[in-house]
């Protein structure tokens, strides 16, 4: 039984923002972090990670800076910008509202109708 969950459209950006909000990360680190914080449940398709990072940077939600990696290699580190922080807060709230509503809807039993 596959334990990874299907990534919903639009949620990748939110997850990336969340990942880099904890600590500056390079692209590979973002992938690892998402896997880690989702309890290995979410595996990002590697091909779509970088276009998403470039898009977020283009929209000024994250900022990139070259730095030194753990194994002393040059790597591009992404951090959350102020705009990104605001966006993450809004999206988290929106997502929670949606998730609560959907959970409530799905948990409805016939007696409650």
């Amino acid at each position: 039984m596959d334990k990874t969950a299907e990534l919903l459209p639009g949620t990748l950006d939110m997850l990336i923002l969340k990942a880099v909000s904890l600590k500056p990360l390079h692209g590979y680190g973002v992938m690892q972090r998402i896997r880690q914080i989702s309890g290995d449940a979410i595996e990002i398709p590697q091909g779509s990670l970088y276009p998403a990072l470039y898009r977020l940077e283009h929209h000024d939600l994250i900022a990139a800076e070259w730095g030194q990696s753990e194994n002393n290699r040059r790597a591009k580190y992404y951090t959350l910008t102020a705009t990104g922080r605001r966006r993450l807060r809004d999206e988290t709230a929106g997502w929670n509202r949606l998730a609560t509503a959907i959970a409530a809807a799905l948990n409805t039993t016939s007696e409650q109708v």
Partner: protein
Amino acid sequence: MFKRLRSLFRVLTRRRDFEEGMTEELRFHIEQYADELVRSGMSPEKAARHARLEFGSLDSVKGDCREERGLHLFDEFRRELSYAARLLRKTPGFTATALLTLAVCLGANLTIFAVIDSVLLRPLPFREPDRLMTIFNTYPKAGVERDGSSLTNYYERRGHISAFTSLAIYRYGTEIIGEAGLTDREQTMRVSPDFFSTLGLGPAIGRTFTEEETTSETDHVAILSDTFWRQRYNADPNVIGRLVRVNSVPRTVIGVLPPTFHFLSSDARVFLPLASRAEERTPLRRHSGGNVIQMIARLQPGATLAQAQSQIDAHNAMLEADDPQAKMIADAGFRSMVVPLHADHVAAIRPTLLLLQAGAFALLLIGAVNLVNLLLIRASSRVKELAVRQALGASRAYVVSEVVVETTLLTLVGGLLGLAIGAGGIRLLRVLGADHLPLGGRIAFDAQLASVALVAAIIMGIVLAVPIAWFNLRQHLGNALQSESRGGTSSRAAQILRHSFIVSQIALAFMLLAGAGLLGLSLQRAMAVSPGFQSDHVLTGQILLPWADYSEAARLTFVESLMDKMAYLPGVLSAGVVNNVPFSGISGKSAATVVGHALRPGESARGHYSYGVAGDYFRAMGFSLRAGRFLTADDSRRSQRVCVVDDDFARYYWPHASAVGQRLWDSSEAGRDAEAFTVVGVVGGAKQAGLTEEQAQGAIYYPYAFRIGDSVFVAVRTSLPPESLGLALQKVVRQIDSDIPVNDLRSMETRITDSLVARRSPALLAGLFSGIALLLTAIGTYGVLSYAVAHRRREIGLRMALGAQPGQIRSQFFYLSLRLLAGGTILGVIGAWLTGQAMQAVLFHVPALNLAILVGAAFVMGVVSLIACLLPSHRAAQISPMEALAEE
């Protein structure tokens, strides 16, 4: 949005950094992943391969990343650009023709537009310049269309016309300025105190003139122009209070104007108060403006020109109520006209400039049509290539954008070349006299003009792309692909389009040709007009005698000793002096009253050219004597009140009697009997202001002693080439007074030639335009016919194999071009008629439709089109049936 643009801009400007960074980042990712796989127990080689495979195609990820940054559009654009550039390089003949056509057409338009822009469009450099008006008096029934304003007008009007915030007067002049021995004659303006406030631009340093400084006792002040201040005072910031000598009288500098101050076309360097005596401001002098003093006014915000005009009319009517001359003034049709200052200043040149712009635009149209035709031909030779690419998935948007990129690249490069041609064209216009146009000094080639030209080039590129894109899109893929190497089926619509383009091109070129012909004929007719005297072998020059140094008596002595000395110069046949020589560019008329002449109803005292002459002026100028005698040196002494009138004058007042012995006063009213002048001779009438002067206004010549002014012209008839006498003349004048130069030394023939510059230069330009138009039309016709021949090679080969003679083939193409020529000419004649109608304002004695010009234009058009069709039809006749059919 702004941030995104900035991010895009940053990436575009550092594109290499972006690409390298992206490659490095992705490589890092894959290697990290491989390391992780190795740690989990995979062999390094296997891990590397696995990591790469799992990541997917590097190129497609990179492509997605670029797309997220909005870079793909630029990449595509760059690809299309380099594709277009490659295509253009592959067809150098086409590209060179197209670029040259564009460069010439855009350059010609840019040149004329530069003039239109600086003369007609760019506002005057004052605050709210469209509120500035000029007001002048007109007496149309007395033959005086324009007479400036009088001092009286100014003092009576200011403060009384509520539609104006302020009102001012000015007069142009020249004064001798500087310390003794270092004097220069400088352009000056005398202005009323409110002149600068009316314009809304006053001195940058110091103050303007005050009301107290408007009398000749108190006017010892001056305001300097910026250039004068810089050149003479080294831009001294403490110049206020220093002295400047004007006509040897010291004046205090009270202000310096800003560098932006340019009043109309004036080059005035020193501004003085317009001082006057109280008696010059009385109602009696209301109508003695004499076109010397001009009036300007600023409209009140919210007030209209019509309001101002009706207030001026009402004010005039009120003043005329108790004017003893009221009837005469009314009979003369007197009115004071309010007109916008800028428009009035350029009114004379406006129709010519608009006409030239229309001509240049017609040229551009011809060029554009040519290009479209050439591009269409090119497009049809690429039908198959395009069809294949569309079949392979090129989208319609791609097909369109490819065409737009190609045509815009062409027009932009052509536009850049056109900038160079425009810069050269502006220089050419200077040679042709554009500097002397009103506001012509502003004509310049600047960045604003260049950007207008490049924007126009881009727009033209897009417009040119429309028919080509339409042609490309309407091709049916299947047809194009199936028709094999026969070059595609001849598209009927495309052919009609090409032919109608040629027809319109011929029509436009015909119009240009006919227009240039009309201008040329008009110039020729103007040149054929006799000036009324013998203009050959006469040298003339102006001498200005400052009032401060020369009393009336001293002037008389100066003129007499000048005449004495001139008589001894070698080569001088006769010499004379006059206040104002014909064609001097200065004009002024004054009234005269003929003894015994009762004014007819509706007639008023007329303005006539009035001159004072000394020496042997009439012989020097070669006037013909019709009756009586010339004025001689003896008449110059004040003893006798005699005068000579010209034919036109004599005919007007004494149509049935001899003029000799008649008497007149040199004023608008009858004077005392002793003051009347007796006519002693009649001379031939002469053109005064220009050869095309229509109204013979009549002239009166008095002995110089009765009309002493501060300016005289010397006229010398010589047996030598007139210009060779110039130095000798200057030397003679310097012998009398070493401070006095001779200005404006020109032979009479040169003056007449110069007076025609406003007709000659447009005619030359129109001729140049139509020459280019002919060449373009020839290229267009040749291109289209060549294409038709190449396109129908197989058909021609087949017909010849079946027995058609080369002559038949040749005449087939010959008839085609004749048909195109006939269509173009018919449209062209209609266009030429409309052009002629529009040109009436600038034509002299030439009707809108002149048969000789039409026939001439048709002939030239015919010769050019037939030459253009000779080569292609000859080539058609030379086609070998064997080769044409064997090709495949």
